[in-house]
């Protein structure tokens, strides 16, 4: 039998994906199916696992003893319970704050060194993004289960909620401006209504994500920073308590969602 090379080449340029598929939710689902098994976040996950297990820093140790909340070295299921209260630091931390904490306490990096490159730029890769991809991927298929047991966890949630509704700045914007009604969009970008449980679940459970428009896995910190920039708010400090509080509110809003990230998005 002759081999027939019926080739369908999917040359996915950024332009194509943006214009043709960002239109509505149904198209996005077709798009997702199209890209099944084609999420480059997988490579980030692999790189992240290597970084997790590689000895580094002045102390020359790996992150394998890092306690993400479920005991030293437990990665599986850690993310669906974050942010959470950590008794060793007596505060609530999100994943990225905790990672930085581990890099400082275990590996001996300074805060500056540990947070030097939170987001990849052309030609300058971030260590944190792959680590986040690796850790979050280890919660795939599990249900979002942030606990609000400790008083500080409750406090973070309440502050996060306040921040969500906080309208201010030159444009009077807040998270609530764009994310409190159904079926709205800015330009062609759909806006999830985060006050609606189903929509909040769907969105939260698919971050971090490999962003085709940027060619990188982007973390929750990155996502929120972009929103805050467009709200005309000041630049948030990386891995700060304010962002953790907002993340806590969003994570709790997504309670029960089956976690499915790192996903692939525009």
């Amino acid at each position, binding site marked *: *039998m*002759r*081999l*027939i*090379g*019926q*080739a*369908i*080449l*999917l*040359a*996915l*340029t*950024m332009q194509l*994906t943006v214009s043709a598929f960002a239109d509505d939710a149904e198209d996005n689902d077709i798009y997702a199916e199209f*890209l099944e*098994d*084609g*999420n*480059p976040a*997988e*490579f980030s996950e692999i790189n992240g696992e290597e970084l997790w297990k590689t000895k580094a820093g002045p102390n020359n140790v790996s992150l394998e003893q890092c306690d993400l909340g479920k005991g030293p070295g437990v990665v599986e299921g850690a993310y669906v319970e974050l942010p959470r209260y950590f008794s060793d630091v007596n505060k609530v931390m999100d994943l990225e704050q905790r990672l930085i904490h581990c890099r400082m306490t275990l590996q001996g990096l300074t805060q500056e060194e540990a947070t030097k490159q939170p987001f990849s*730029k*052309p*030609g*300058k890769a971030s260590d944190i993004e792959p680590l986040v991809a690796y850790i979050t991927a280890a919660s795939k298929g599990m249900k979002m289960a942030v606990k609000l047991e400790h008083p500080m966890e409750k406090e973070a949630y309440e502050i996060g909620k306040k921040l969500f509704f906080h309208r201010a700045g030159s444009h009077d914007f807040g998270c609530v401006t764009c994310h409190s009604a159904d079926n709205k969009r800015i330009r062609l970008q759909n806006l999830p209504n985060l006050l609606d449980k189903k929509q909040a679940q769907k969105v939260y459970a698919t971050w971090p994500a*490999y962003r*085709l428009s940027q*060619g990188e896995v982007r973390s929750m910190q990155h996502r929120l920073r972009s929103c805050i920039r467009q709200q005309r708010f000041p630049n948030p400090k990386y891995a700060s308590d304010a962002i953790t509080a907002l993340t806590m509110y969003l994570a709790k809003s997504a309670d029960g969602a089956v976690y499915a990230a790192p996903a692939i998005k525009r």
Partner: protein
Amino acid sequence: MAKPMRIRAKLKGDHVEAKILIQHDMETGLRKGSDGAKIPAHFIKTLTVKYEDKVVLDTVMGIAVSKDPFLSFKFKGGEKGGKLTVTWVDNSGDTRTDTTAVK
């Protein structure tokens, strides 16, 4: 250094569906870095897929293809356990070959 690909090949009825995910920056040579200088072009020029020793896909790629390219295609005549070999060559002469068995 060339990084490994992810290749999946599955027999579906009378054809094999192959999915190839490649790690490559695919720099166009037109982007500028934060220092304002252009980032040199670095992209895959050709990609060839062989089933056993026969070429089933031969492509010419360029700077219009995105970073971390993903290719999916079908071909007839494959069988379970057959060997699929993917090779790419980029403009710097770098090359990478990975292999998988049809499932």
